[in-house]
């Protein structure tokens, strides 16, 4: 028996033959791009956060990113080896666990930039909401999947209840961006799970009303949205980001040649896409955005052949969250959306968020494992026939 041969029936062998290798390859490419991008953004971030007694080396953030990649990859691969059953169990237990952590943030949390989002655990800081996100998506999928066989359980209402609790906790921090993401992904999942069109419209109205309330009653949300809509006030951050794209042009200034990046706020996290824009150009930016889309489309198209409602909903939810977060970040960088404080998955530098993303992607890889020779979708069959 050759290792990873067709007849390899070990855990690793089965993993190798059932994993979505195209998806895995694209994710690894993304992580590679992320390393290059963080290397480009690192000097700018180091300059920005150096001062007084803190002197950061130019590649300080790059080195940390390497560390987080080395920590995150095993998490992703490890989680991807779970069976669907174990993935579900992990999600259910994790959701409940991190829900408690999220509720504890106001008590144990640390404040940063006017919001309380972090919990410090053994010298380690993490955002419970980051980990809760993928787990809650799988958890929601588990609840909603029951609708396919048994209508007696009020699955939709129940999962909505969980969403409301999470949204309330998030808005207390306050973290509008995450709230929108949670709600959006939930809505997508509910829609996929067959929610009626009327209910969908109602939910959308509710979401808009919720945003309106946030706009009216949460001051920083008010100011951010005002700035985005009117273009007035302090648009320094977003103007600097746009300067990056303008100065980069189609082909970029070249690695390490960027100048605008030094005036960017958070060049290594929220605005890393702008750094890519300046140093590698618009074409590279399009490549990155296209890679995100390719991952989303790859997963969604593969799901057309999926028969298990739980796997279907969970995978669709996870990849929607992944894609939506990427698109929101990119559109904020391009000034198509008001600024949100959301990172670019696998590209932005980030400790706990990178681990959470690795876990989410691990779950997705675990759920999409299957025999690549079985086809379920009539659509695909028809396309092949045509």
């Amino acid at each position: 028996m050759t290792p990873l041969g067709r007849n390899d029936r070990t855990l690793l062998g089965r993993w190798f033959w059932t994993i979505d290798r195209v998806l895995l390859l694209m994710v690894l490419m993304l992580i590679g791009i992320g390393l290059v991008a963080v290397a480009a953004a690192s000097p700018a971030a180091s300059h920005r956060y150096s001062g007084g007694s803190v002197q950061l080396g130019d590649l300080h953030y790059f080195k940390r990113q390497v560390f987080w990649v080395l920590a995150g990859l095993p998490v992703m691969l490890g989680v991807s080896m779970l069976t669907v059953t174990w993935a579900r169990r992990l999600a259910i237990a994790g959701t409940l666990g991190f829900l408690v952590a999220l509720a504890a943030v106001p008590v144990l949390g640390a404040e940063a930039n006017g919001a309380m989002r972090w919990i410090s655990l053994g010298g380690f800081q993490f955002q419970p909401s980051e980990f809760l996100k993928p787990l809650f998506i799988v958890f929601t999928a588990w609840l909603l999947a029951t609708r396919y066989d048994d209508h007696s359980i009020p699955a939709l209402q129940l999962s909505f209840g969980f969403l409301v609790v999470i949204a309330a906790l998030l808005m207390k921090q306050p973290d509008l961006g995450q709230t929108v993401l949670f709600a959006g992904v939930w809505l997508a999942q509910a829609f996929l799970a067959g929610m009626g069109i009327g209910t969908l419209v109602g939910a959308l109205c509710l979401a808009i009303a919720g945003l309106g309330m946030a706009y009216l009653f949460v001051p920083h949300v008010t100011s951010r949205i005002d700035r985005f809509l009117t273009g007035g006030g302090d648009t320094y951050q977003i103007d600097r980001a746009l300067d990056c794209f303008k100065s980069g042009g189609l082909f970029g200034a070249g690695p390490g040649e960027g100048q605008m990046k030094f005036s960017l706020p958070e060049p290594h996290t929220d605005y890393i896409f702008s750094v890519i824009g300046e140093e590698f150009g618009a074409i590279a930016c399009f490549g990155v955005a296209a890679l995100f889309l390719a991952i989303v489309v790859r997963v969604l198209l593969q799901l057309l052949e999926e028969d298990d409602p739980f796997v279907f909903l969970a995978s669709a939810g996870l990849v929607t969250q992944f894609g939506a977060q990427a698109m929101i970040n990119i559109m904020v960088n391009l000034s198509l959306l008001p600024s949100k404080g959301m990172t670019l998955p696998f590209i932005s530098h980030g400790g706990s968020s990178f681990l959470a993303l690795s876990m989410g992607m691990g779950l997705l890889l675990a759920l999409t494992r299957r025999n690549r020779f079985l086809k379920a979708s009539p659509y695909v069959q028809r396309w092949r026939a045509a």
Partner: protein
Amino acid sequence: MSPLALRQQRIQVAGQRQLALGRSRQRLMIGVLLFVALLAVVALRLLDLSMLQGAKPAGQRDLFAALVPPRADIVDRHGAELARTFDAYSIAVRPRDIVGDKRELAERIAAALPGMTYEKALATLNHPGKYRYLQRRVLPTDAKRINAIGEPGILLEREPERLYPNLGLASHILGYTDIDGKGAAGVERAFEERLSRDDMRGKPLVLSVDSRIQQAMEHELAVAMEKFSAVGAAGIVLDVRTGEVLAMTSLPELNPNDAGKGSVEARFNRTTLGVYELGSTFKPFTVAMAMDAGTVRSMGQMYECPRGLRVGRFTITDTHPFGRRCSVAEIMQESSNIGTAQIARELGGARQKAFLEKMGFLEPVSIELKERGRTLSPGANWGEIATMTVGYGHGIAVTPLHLATGYAALFNGGVWRPATILKVGKDQPLAPGRRVFTEQTSYKMRALMRLVVTEGTGRKADAPGYRVGGKTGTAEKVVNGRYKRNAVINTFAGVFPMDDPRYVVVAMLDEPQPLKETYGFRTAGWNVAPVVSKVITRIGPVLGVVPDEQREPNMAEVLPYIEPKAKP
């Protein structure tokens, strides 16, 4: 098989769950399309930002911007550079980034930079702050030496710097800028907006000044100032037809590149800000006024000129007393105060004041500069005595530029024009003038002024062939409202060529001392008149005035009315 039929079949076969899954798959495709649409939006926006908005390619735009100076250059009437802005070096230190040994580094810096000491360099290198200037306004060669040290903690930076390449040349016209690059004096101050405006700064400001003439004037004045140990000097060359200032200088010299180091005395512009009793140089105005008013009808009109003329409590005296009746021509030739005072008395205070007003002598001088002094005049006490003293240039204090514009009006046919520091031409039309004297008076004055130089007190101002005419003026200096003993302001106001007047040359020396070679005299004829002679000899060819010993104004107007000197 049609999709509908296929679906019907599936419902029957797979039941409820398959139906739901089918709908889910449909909806999934909507999601895919949504994401694709989002990517299209992102792609369009990327193109918009990088191609359309960035299309004024940053590099190219910067190149053009780099060619437009942050402040307009100033050039003379022939385009010679008088002031420009360039990127100077400034040397700064980040003390914490210093790699090398600080003592050694300080030694090398002190050796590389003139005016830098080891102690000062070391103190800067050891400064606890993050950033510190070591020296600003550093020459490229010195900056290069610093760069060669190769210390990463030393930064070479560029900052715009105003440079006056000719050092002190025309410094009082040009003025200087302050530390922020804003005009603080002279043209820099008067034309601040013009020089710094975005749409104008690409075009140099063209002055009326001719550097060659400016240089000749400055040089001759400086030589005389040193020779006679004067405390200051001033000089002007003015085009009588246009009012353009071709040269205007004030000494002691000021280097505008380092104006802060100049003394108060050096920064003071004597030509437009300083007001002086200019004495006898005023007399031609009085004669011309009297001719226009009709009280003097001929150069041969006679006045009683005793050795002293008592007027009220005062006695007016002459340096060359006649003690007899003499003609207007003789009065001017020997610069008689007594004679001129009587001409002024005949003219009357009211008419005198009106003439002075028309010539702008009662208000700050007309020029674009901001440094313009208030003139002094008898004001409300313009009685008979005041009229008489003003007639020979006392009791009225004006700037040397007033005098120059007055002479221009007197000899250009009688039209007064404001002086201008800008070249008159396409962009700068000739200022409208006003008639002060009749053309006939202006014409007659030519011979009279030429007479002063050929036969009178201004003989040393003559420049062979250039038909110089003019008038000396020696006035006791007023300090704190009193006449200062043994201190004089000497002036010579000259015009050439006198047969067709083109240029006024005014030179002034402040407190010249008597010398052995001037036989102990300190009068204008001995010290400042030669300056005018030398200046005209130098600038005549530059201005295209052809020296011609044969040409003279119509001297028949005056020669019959003077007593031929007894030849020794």
